[in-house]
């Protein structure tokens, strides 16, 4: 048997993330004792309509989040208990609504910092409805072998250590949440465990009190003794003493009261819990509570550490008197183990999981990202630049200073080419249409292809092929290209020519060949090709794509990375155009009629539909 929570308890949790965490802990207990899921619904308006994933052991349940309690109860009429996990400013309203709901008999609130007046009103309201309002600031309620409400009992391992999978003979009532768990452990270690444990919360005016639950335990034949953990402040412990002394009680009471140190602490000092404060003239002092309880016949050790002995003593007496019959201990090995996550099993080496993807360039599992093993901050600190990062992430090695400088200059030279080219123009049109940065830049990005900027990779690829297969036979190479590929990528320009050379090409070729020691077989080869093609036609010059492609071959970058240089460089420009248009507050644009040749059919009548 138990009090408050049992096998028939079905709960709704009102609140967000903290409530979800509690539901997951509760489901672990449900799994341990093989009972159906305790939490049947959530109420949290911001997430109404969503479902939350709750594992009961290995079984995945989807629990619905409702926008209102009314709706949750309508669809889950079996719910009889509400757990309040919502913030202090809304806790009163939520709890009152729950108390007013017909099917709900018990409302327990973990919310801390609830105004005293709200707690007092809820207590009064619950009394008027004949229901129980437990809390605020309650860690929850545990009935061994039957039901867990809240995170009381802690982690899964502890549930076993405290024998919470099966009932014992001790009741527990505490103000403190942490000590409810400690008390359950003490009852398991020094006795046979608990029937139920309730945390009433450490506020000044909790919704219930020790006497409420002492009465329930007194009426629960399986409970033989109750451990009370109280503290300075209020008169709930005195009332418990009065209850105990009033008539002969079936249950034994063991108690520990915190706050005797108050005599030596700064006057008026506040302890951990809101309710832990001494009144005038020593009213509610720990010492007066201890005396009252002792006088009424409770066992009260002089420190908390003494509880172990006290519980053991009472347990042995109960065994001796026959009130408790010793039962064979369950073999804990028979209890289910919480199914581990794949990650946990992998750590133990008991499972092999085939990875979904593989990476060879970067790793952010540590404190900071590492590029091919090098910490990003260390690269910064040692004076490396973005060109080195490009080389690391695209080519997996640190470039020489010369190589890095070439990479940098390629990016700088290619960063933008004015608003008229396809990429920039695409971004500008999008910017003028009010499109946001990433989408506007990708509008420009979609232009990069065979006719615009996308020839770098192919240029590099074929010149490299030429160097390898037709080293001293440029006509042979051109012939092969003509037969197998078509126009040579990287050769030719719409407006530039021998007489009107591309300044960027000139500059790059001059820089790489004359100012660096880079060995440039591919670039040299392309320049030889250019000599022949320009002899045929003036504008068949080595263009910027071709130049960059060849240099990248000579830098030993992987072939398929070449277009990346143009994409990366031009992104800088496109972002610039987007910002520029936004700075100017540009308006939506459309083409003027005179820029379009309307080569269309004349106006005519639509034939009747047949």
């Amino acid at each position, binding site marked *: 048997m138990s009090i408050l929570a049992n096998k028939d308890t079905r709960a709704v949790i009102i609140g967000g993330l903290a409530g979800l*965490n509690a539901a997951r*802990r509760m489901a672990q207990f449900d799994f341990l004792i093989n009972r159906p899921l305790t939490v049947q619904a959530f109420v949290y308006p911001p997430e109404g309509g969503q479902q939350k994933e709750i594992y009961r052991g290995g079984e995945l349940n989807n629990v619905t989040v409702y926008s209102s309690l009314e709706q949750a109860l309508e669809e889950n009429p079996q719910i009889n208990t509400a757990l309040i996990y919502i913030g*202090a*400013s809304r806790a009163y309203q939520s709890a009152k609504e729950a108390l007013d709901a017909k099917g709900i008999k018990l409302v327990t609130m973990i919310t801390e*910092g*609830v*105004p*005293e*007046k*709200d707690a*007092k*009103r809820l*207590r009064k309201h619950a009394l008027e409805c004949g229901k129980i309002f437990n809390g605020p600031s309650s*860690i929850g309620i545990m009935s061994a072998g039957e039901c867990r409400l809240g*995170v009381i*009992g*802690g*982690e899964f391992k*502890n549930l076993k250590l405290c024998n919470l999978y099966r009932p014992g003979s001790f009741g527990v009532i*505490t*103000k*403190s*949440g*942490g*000590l409810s*768990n*400690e008390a359950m*452990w003490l009852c398991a*270690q020094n006795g046979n465990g608990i029937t139920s444990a309730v945390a009433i919360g*450490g506020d*000044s*005016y909790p919704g219930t009190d020790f006497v409420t639950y002492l009465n329930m335990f007194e009426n629960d034949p399986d409970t033989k003794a109750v451990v009370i953990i109280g*503290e300075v402040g*209020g008169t709930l412990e005195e009332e418990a003493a009065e209850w105990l002394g009033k008539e002969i009680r079936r249950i034994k009471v063991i108690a*520990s009261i*915190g*706050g*005797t*140190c108050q*005599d*030596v*602490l*700064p*006057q*008026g*000092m*506040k*302890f*951990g*819990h*809101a309710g*832990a*404060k001494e009144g005038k003239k020593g009213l509610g002092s*720990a010492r007066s509570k201890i005396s009252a309880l002792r006088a009424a016949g409770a066992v009260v050790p*002089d*420190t*908390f*550490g003494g*509880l*172990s002995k006290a519980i053991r003593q009472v347990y042995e007496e109960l065994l001796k008197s026959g009130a408790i019959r010793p039962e064979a201990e369950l073999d804990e090995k028979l209890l289910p183990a919480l199914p581990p996550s794949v990650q946990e099993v992998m750590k133990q080496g008991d499972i092999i999981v085939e990875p979904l993807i593989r990476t060879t360039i970067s790793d952010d599992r540590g404190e900071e990202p590492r590029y091919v093993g090098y910490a990003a901050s260390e690269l910064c600190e040692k004076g490396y630049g973005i060109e080195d990062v490009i080389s690391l992430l695209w080519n997996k090695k640190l470039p020489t200073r010369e190589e890095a400088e070439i990479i940098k200059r390629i990016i700088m030279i290619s960063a933008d080419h004015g608003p008229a080219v396809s990429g920039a123009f695409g971004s500008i049109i999008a910017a003028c249409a009010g499109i946001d940065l990433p989408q506007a830049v990708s509008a420009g990005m979609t232009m990069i292809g065979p006719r615009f900027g996308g020839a770098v990779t192919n240029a590099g690829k074929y010149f490299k092929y030429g160097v390898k297969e037709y080293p001293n036979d440029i006509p042979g190479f051109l012939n092969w290209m003509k037969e197998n590929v078509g126009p040579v990528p990287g050769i030719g320009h719409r407006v530039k020519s021998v007489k009107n050379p591309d300044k960027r090409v000139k500059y790059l070729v001059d820089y790489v060949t004359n100012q660096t020691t880079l060995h440039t077989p591919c670039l040299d080869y392309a320049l030889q090709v250019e000599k022949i093609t320009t002899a045929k036609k003036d504008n068949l010059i080595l263009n910027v794509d071709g130049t960059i492609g060849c240099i990248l071959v000579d830098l030993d970058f992987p072939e398929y990375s070449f277009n990346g240089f143009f994409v990366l460089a031009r992104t800088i420009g496109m972002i610039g155009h987007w910002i520029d248009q936004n700075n100017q507050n540009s308006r939506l644009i459309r083409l003027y009629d005179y820029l379009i040749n309307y080569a269309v059919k004349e106006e005519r009548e639509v034939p009747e539909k047949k």
Partner: protein
Amino acid sequence: MAKILEGPAMKLFNKWGIPVPNYVVIMDPDRLAQLGEANKWLRESKLVVKAHEAIGGRFKLGLVKLGLNLDEAYLAAKEMIGREIGTSVVHQVIVAEMLDHDEEYYVSIAGTRDGSELLLSSKGGVDIEDNWDTVKRLFIPLDENPSIETITEAALEAGFVGEIAERVAKIASRLILCFDDEDAQSIEINPLVIRKSDMRFAALDAVMNVDWDARFRHADWDFKPVSEIGRSYTEAEQQIMDIDARIKGSVKLVEVPGGEIALLTAGGGASVFYSDAVVARGGSIANYAEYSGDPPDWAVEALTETICRLPHIKHIIVGGAIANFTDVKATFSGIINGFRESKSKGFLENVQIWVRRGGPNENQGLAAMKKLQEEGFDIHVYDRSMPMTDIVDLALNS
């Protein structure tokens, strides 16, 4: 519980029509001269000047000066502002009209579980403790307002007569409204004075506590509660409070000068029992501390370093119950970092550390703590099988 200073309390009294003397709160004595030009009462009444700070025993410390004219009040204010009392500094003074009066009464109200209790006595003033048996109590059920007749009846029973009883009842009824609407926990007016010549009442002195948890519904609460420990907070306490305000979970610290046993304990309930155990075994605590609600490790680390710096400590008790959801491994890693840092700065010389804890990831947390032995720490680590506060016994017997 949040005690508020007289200034804000008087402002709330004004709001609810409870008579208060004229008053001003100033930070700069020169402001008083200007206020004197604007306010007749400052020029013509006898004045009282009081330090407007949370300092106990102000009268004995010379922080209350009575019966002054404006010039004398200026000098008194000048003398008080900037004075250092222990760790506190007087920043503000309240200058109030010292009402000539005929009688002193006592009116107070305090919350109870089922509502509140109004206390009335016609024999108020400094001797109220001696006249406690004259106090008439009136229980006010939650969310009910007693009729003026009921209060008047109570006033009559408390020894008030005739019109005075009616007027006191009226003031008490407003006090009940103020108490209820301002989420107060207690208000004590002592004395409530009367000048019979013009039947003028005034709450000359008042102590008010409000429920700080209810501040979300009081937009006009422009004050902060005063220190709850009968003195100003120390710098270390203030730092820990600042951290506490920023984090999930909480960290708390109160220093107790002269103690030898430092507490680095977890949980609002358990931490108190650890303090009790030290006192019960004849030890002296150097502080009260608590961390709970799974605070981040850096916050626990800051608390640890603060505690390691406490002077003259011989033991540190790293105690706690079996946590429900505070991660032992994570919070212990904060404590371990704090210990290491403190040791490298020369603290923890001849200090013994005693650990007992359980909860999520307890094995890893305790093992990590135990490893500190290899680094030369005098540390003793126990798991859940050690009764919670028995490490205090071990420490004091060592």
